[in-house]
Every structure is written in C-alpha cells, then in structure tokens.
C-alpha cells in the first residue's frame, strides 16, 4: 500500500501520519509537497493535521487553494481514498471535497483531550475494522462542524456521518466528529487516529481506521 501525506507550510502532524503509515502499518509513505504534483500510483492520500498557513484567515482556507489540491480533487474524483484529519478535514471542507465548514469551538478555546466516538457506520472503507465505540484524542480550536439544514439532512439521510462524539466537546451540529463524501471515498474527521495507534501512547483504537483502509484497498502491505 502506497500512501501520500500532503505537507503544507504549517502542517504539523505530517510526520506523525508518515510514521504511522510506515512504522505501524508497514506501508510505503511518501511526503508530498503542496506546490508539487501528486506522485502517481498512490492508494491513499492523507491530509494531516496542523496549522497550514498558520490557520490565518480561516483554518484550511489557504491550503485548500494550493496547487496539489487540484490533483487531490482529481484523485478523489477517480475514486481514490482521501483521509483528512483535523486540519485535513478543514481543508477538505474549504476545498469543497466535503460539505460544511468547521467553526471555532463554542467555548472559543483549544481542546486537547481524549474523546469517545460512536462509529455510526462500520461498512465503509474507513471504518470496516472499527469497533462500535472508539477512543481518540482531539486537538483543535476550530472543530465545531456546521452544515446548513438541507446538507445536514442529506448527510444523515444518506448515512454519511461516520463518527459522532458521545459527549460533544465543541458544539458540532448533531455531535458530528467525522463524515464521508457521497461517493464514500473522502473522509474528514477532527479526532486524530494517528495519535491512538501505538501501545506506548496508551490507546490503539485509532489504528482501526488505518486497518479499515488497508482492508478496503486490498493491497495488504
């Protein structure tokens, strides 16, 4: 399995995602610079967390307009799986690859803590290996998901909500922590699976997301 991890100036979970892909999952992991074209032959694209472009203006707004994002959109259109984590989720929304937007948390402060998630669907390529409830850290100040009424009805109606907070930390509508695209190949989530994938970090629930992707791709290692 060959994963591309996109690096924007200000990304700061890029190394964590590369490391989980390589050392924990045993995949081939390729750093992809935001100004360059996406390398060919990828099985998965990860948009990592961080503060791309300082999160100035709006989280993810400037990164969403980077040259590489045109390639990511084409990759997604062709059915390639794309996982956006935290800032990656914000970028996907800003780029229009996922609906909605992430606003500042309702209490206006950054939250770095473990949360429990309900996995709403376990028949998708992002969740097939997940148990019903998983624990993962969040670390964000702009994770308060918003979609207008129609969009929300569509997300819920079509079963596109993948992860829901058991206790809403940030004010997200319908307790949404992660969603996927209609086509089912683009997923954005605020919690950090890569921070919960090794015993030494105290929790391995996040690994199930990566394991799901490996299963779906069928490329094995």
């Amino acid at each position: 399995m060959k994963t591309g991890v996109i690096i924007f100036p200000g990304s700061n979970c890029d190394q964590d995602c590369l490391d989980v892909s390589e050392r924990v999952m045993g995949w081939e992991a390729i750093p992809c610079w935001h100004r360059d074209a996406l390398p060919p032959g990828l099985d998965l694209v990860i948009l990592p967390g961080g503060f791309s472009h300082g999160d100035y203006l709006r989280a993810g707004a400037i990164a969403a307009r980077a040259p590489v994002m045109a390639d990511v959109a084409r990759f997604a259109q062709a059915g390639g799986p794309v996982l956006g984590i935290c800032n990656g989720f914000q970028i996907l929304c800003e780029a229009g690859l996922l609906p909605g937007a992430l606003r500042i948390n309702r209490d206006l402060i950054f939250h770095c803590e473990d949360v429990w998630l309900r996995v709403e669907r376990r028949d998708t390529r992002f969740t097939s290996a997940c148990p019903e409830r998983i624990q993962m850290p969040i670390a964000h100040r702009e994770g308060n998901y918003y979609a207008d009424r129609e969009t929300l009805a569509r997300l819920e109606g079509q079963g596109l909500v993948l992860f829901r907070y058991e206790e809403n930390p940030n004010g997200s509508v319908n307790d949404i922590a992660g969603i996927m695209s209609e086509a089912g190949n683009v997923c954005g989530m605020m919690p950090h699976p890569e921070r919960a994938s090794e015993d030494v970090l105290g929790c391995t629930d996040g690994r199930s997301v990566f394991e799901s992707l490996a299963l779906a791709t069928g490329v094995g290692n």
Partner: protein
Amino acid sequence: MDDRSSSPWRWPREWGIDVTLNASITPDLVTQHGLRPEEYEGIVERLGREPSIVELGIYSVMWSEHCAYKHSRPVLRGLPTTGERVLVGPGENAGVIDIGGGLAIAFKMESHNHPSAVEPYQGAATGVGGILRDIFTMGARPVAMLDNLRFGEPSDPAMQHLVEGVVEGIAGYGNCVGVPTVAGDVMFDPGHAGNILVNVMCVGVMRSEDLALGQAQGPGNAVLCFGSATGCDGIHGATFASEELSEQALERRGAVQVGDPFMGKRILEATLELIRRGLVAGIQDMGAAGLTCSTCEMAGRAGTGIEIDLDRVPQRAEGMSAYEIMLSESQERMLAVVEPPKIEAALEVCERWECGGVVIGEVTDTGQMVVRHHGATVADIPAEHLTGAAPVYHPEDAPPAAPRPLGETPRIRRSEVNATLLRLLASPTIASKRWAWRRYDHMVQTGAAVRPGEGDAAVIRLRGRDGGPDRFIAVTSDGNHRAVARDARIGGQLAVCEAARNLVCVGAEPLGVTNCLNFGSPERPEVFGAFRRCVGGMAEACRALGVPVTGGNVSFYNEADGIAIPPTPMIGMLGLIEDAAHITRMAWREVGDVICMLGPLPEGLGGSELLKMTAGPDLPGTAPLGTIAPFDLEGEVRLQSLTLRAIREGLIRSAHDVSEGGLAVTLAECCLGGLGARIDAAPGDDLAVALFGELPPRVVVSVRAEDAPRLCAMAEAEGVDCAEIGEVTGGGLSLAGCEEIAIDALRAAHETRPWEGLA
C-alpha cells in the same frame, strides 16, 4: 536607589531623542541607555573616540543585565557544568546532552516576565517563539515545551486577564508550531502579583553530528538573514528586561512584539534543513537585542569580525534609522553564516519554506563588528569588547530576612482531616492544572508517553530511527519559591532535588539541568544575598546528585512598587529512561498492592500549603512565617538512587513524590486514576505535620504485597527509611482512621479551577 529608575530614558524616537548620526552623546543620553558613567568612560577609552548613537545603543543592549549577566556571572561560576555526557555547556544558545545511540538533546529555559506583564498573550507567545529558536538553532528538532507560571492570587481582579492571556499565548504559539507543551507548573502567590513570571523551557532532539553552533566561522563567508522583516518593535527589549517594571518602563517600550507562529514553524523547518544538509557554517536566532546581539555573539564566539549593510536588511517600516534596525527585536528572524559556494542552495531552502533570505554582509578577520547604512559606517566596534569585556559587578550581599518563628503549630483533629484535604486539593496552586494543559496540544508528534497529570515528569518517546527501538526521555520543570523565601540555600537545594526526584519517580536517570533564576534587583543587598545563597545551594545539590548545569537564564529586576518578588528559581531537568518497562506513573495499579513511604519522617509546617491556607500567604515585603527544617542532602541522594534502582528492578508499580500539600495530597493524587487507598499509619504523632507537612521530601510508592519485604530490605541496606503505610483498595481514600472519601469527591475538588467559587 537605582538611578535608572529615577531618571528613565525613553524610546528614543517616540520621546524626541535624536537617533540620527549627528546626535551628540550627552551624559543624560548615556544614563538613559542604562550605562553608568564609568562604563561609558571604558567605551570611549577602548574606541579611542566618542561612540556614535548606534554604537551607544549597541553597547547599551550588549552590556545590559539580560545579555551580559553583569551581576550574576561570578556567582553562576559556582555551578558544576561538566560531565561525560555534556556536549555543549553554558554559553551557547542551549545546552546539549549526549544520550547515546548517536542522539543528543538540546534544552534550555528562558523568562519572558516583563513582556507578559504588559501584554500577556503576545508576551507569552513570543517567549515560546524565542525558546523554540534557541533549540532549533542548535540543530535540534523541538519535541517538548514546558511552562512555569507564577501569578498573584486569583482573587486579585487583575489576575484572571493575565492568566487567561498567558495560557492562551503559550497555546497559540506552541500548538501552531506543533511542539507539544507537556509539563510545567502554575502557582499563585501575592508576592508575584505585581510582577508575574512566565518561564518557558524547550527540549529538542538531534543526531549528534548535526550539532550547529552560533559562531561566525570563516572570514569571507556570507552572513545571511531570513525570516520576518525587521520593524520598529521591541526596541530595547533586553534593556527592558533588565530593569524594574514601572509605568515609565512600560511607556518607553517600542511597539509590542507580535508573535508569528506560522513564520516560527517555517524558520524552524528551514533551519533544520539548512543544518542537516550542511549548508551553514554557523547559525543563530535573533532574540534579545536582535541583529546586534546575534552578530556580535557569533563574531565574538569565533574570534572573527562581521560586517553588515543595513540597507539590505528587509524592513517592515519605512525610514527606519540604523539605530532602530540594529536594536529592533522583531520576532522570527535568523542569522546564518554560509560559505559562498553554498549560498544559492541555502537561499533555495529559504524560498521553499517561504521565509525570505538575503545576504546582508560577510565574516571578516578584523575582529571588528562593522555596520553600514546608506553608505556610511555607523558602527565599528571590536566584537570581543562587546561580548567579553562587559563589566562585572560584585554587589553588596546581605542575608535575606529570616522567617518569623511559627510559635504554636496549627493542630488538626482527626475529624478535620478530610475537609482540610479537600480544601487543599481545591486550592489554586495544588488543584489540577487541566484548565491550562488541555489548551496545550500535548500530544502532537505522537510522543507523549506520560502525559500531564499522569506522572511527576512528562515522558517523551523519541521514535526509533532506521528500524531501531524507540527511546524515552523525561522532562520536568519546577520551583517552590516558598521554601527559597525561608532559606535560600536549602531552597536552592530543594528545587534541584525536586526536579531530579520527579524524573526518578517516572523511572528516569537525571542527566542535565537548565534553570531560570527569577529575582528582584541585584542591587538590593538582601536580594543579591538570596541569589548567591540560592545558587550555592543549587550547586551543592547538582554536585551531590551528579547532574551538570548546561545552561539557564537569570531574570533580575522582578519587582513591583519597590518590592522584590520572592526569590524564585525554576529548575528544568532532563532524564533518560533506558527501557520502556521502567516508565512509572503516579496512579495506583492494583487492589491489594502495598503502599510505602520512602524517606524521613516529616518535620514542621514552615512553607507548607497548609500553613498558607490557615495563616495566610507570605506577604510581599515581609518576612515569611515558619522556618523550614534542615535538609539532609546526602539522605536525599540515597532516597533517589534507591527509588530509581527499585524501579529498574521492577519492584515499583507506581511512584509519586510528596510536594505541595504533603503526604495527604500526594496520596489523593495517586487515587485519581480510579483506585483508592486505606492508610493505616500516619507517620509521626502530629496529624497536621504527618499528613500535610511537605518537608523533608519523600516518595510514595506502591508495590506488590509479596515485594514489600524486598523493597524494605533494599531501603535498609541503602540507609533510607521505608514505612509500609497502607494498601491499595477498590474504594475511596481513607486516612489514618478517618472516614473514606470517595474518589469522585477527590476528583471534583482537584478539578476546581482558580476562579470557581469567586464572585
């Protein structure tokens, strides 16, 4: 007392002082620059002429207390600074310790007290930016940040705004750059109300061969600057840090510096790439005193000269004078020395990371620091005179005020124990600091193996490289000023010992010390007396424990309304954990485990949080109440080596040291993981002292029941007291025959935030 505070100088342009070249240097102007007449005479003599206004500005910052350590250098020489593992000791941007396997750790602590008092968010944020630069400048990737904060009591109406701003500023910068803030402490005391303390520490990891030094090597090499453009902000920041906080001092500061963590992240990546690819011969950040300090220090360390042309320095404001460009403390700027064939590659790296990059001058062999502007030479000074010849003072030294004896110690009846414990747990200094650290991204870089609140120190996993195993380091920073206020020498010893003990309790061997010494004006004999004694105590403890000091920072002039803060040394320490199996946390592990207290019996209540709660806090400018007991340093060394050895032998299941709040609070904190404890025996016969006395230091551990005899035998062989005091249970905490307190009740008290319960 201090002539600088009675006739303050002002930020030259704003206050109508001529900073152009034809300015004439009057005695007033010299005083306004914080230089003494005899210092000025030395300058004239060395230059053989009157300095220009630019040169005067340069001398004033380079010879400020902040940069030159005029009052502290002779005292600091008493600290042990060498050891087998020390790759870089004091003098560089950060100390570096070899941890084997080709890896080294750079670490350093800094204060940003005065800027944070003026503008808490930006002051704290730029403090974080500055300490990060000190670390990556050495070639190390920052892997952890720590913060030590001191405020006035939360009931003081001004404090909430300051605490909020400082915590938000640390979070704002650290989170964005992606360096986890993993530990620290926060204390509230009236003594710090007028002059809050914001100390930050950063820890970075590097391959030993990537070590980079801040030296301007090789005449003919280019001097490159990259990062943000230079603006009129923070002019004379170093001097600002070197005097008391007063209305006048605030007024005369240039524009407030604003941190740009996004630029901070870009120069971090660019710097590490430049170093890793061997593109720089020397590199240094522009911190205090900006371009002035970085150029002089780099030339001074290498024994070379440096020549720069200010017209090439990217500027944010129009029409800046040479004086302003040289003294600006605009953030996020770096200075590198590059061999001519590598310039192009170096500039490419800067471009890729979108952080500018211009050649502004060259290294020379003249030993002179030469500055040109608009075609004229505006400064031409021997670099070594600026860095090596700064005056040294031996201030008058008087013993600090002795504590007032306590008279009768407060007694606590058995029926009052639980309520006392809950009140202490909820007190701002002892209560959980979750309200702060949950706003810090402490998990980025997937390294937080022991997180805030889980152990006495944070444990950071360093990813194994090239298929090698993970490595683990532990970091902590601490400083209980209440002990130092009572006995500066013992307080200094205790501060070092507490940091080391915190490391030992998570299973780490202490390897190196950094520190930040926050004191009042050294020109007050009793302040200097406390400083000298405190550093002496620190040195004794470092020697006894065998840990060298690799760097630190002195912050003098922490005063308000003419009253010094309590002497507040902060100790940062680095430890190494050889085996992941040795990582130890504070929470009990299993019902039935035996709880032991290692160390001597408690003595007295002087300096304790209990006494603060019952008799009130130490008040600024008055002698503190209650003495502290003599401290057996040798015994402490034995206690720590026993604890570490027992952990390494797999005996210890949990460990937590006794600090603020005493044994009862320590036990309660061990219960927060979910298991309870039944404590049968309170050591000693006075309940207050036994449960709430904080000294001498002790460690509470839990072991499997069958291992308890072995631990006791080991302790006896090492000459350490070991008392079985109780047992881990599935219920709550019951202390020496008192009713059980439910864990939820302990947790609720411990999670009290500083402003809860206040109007």
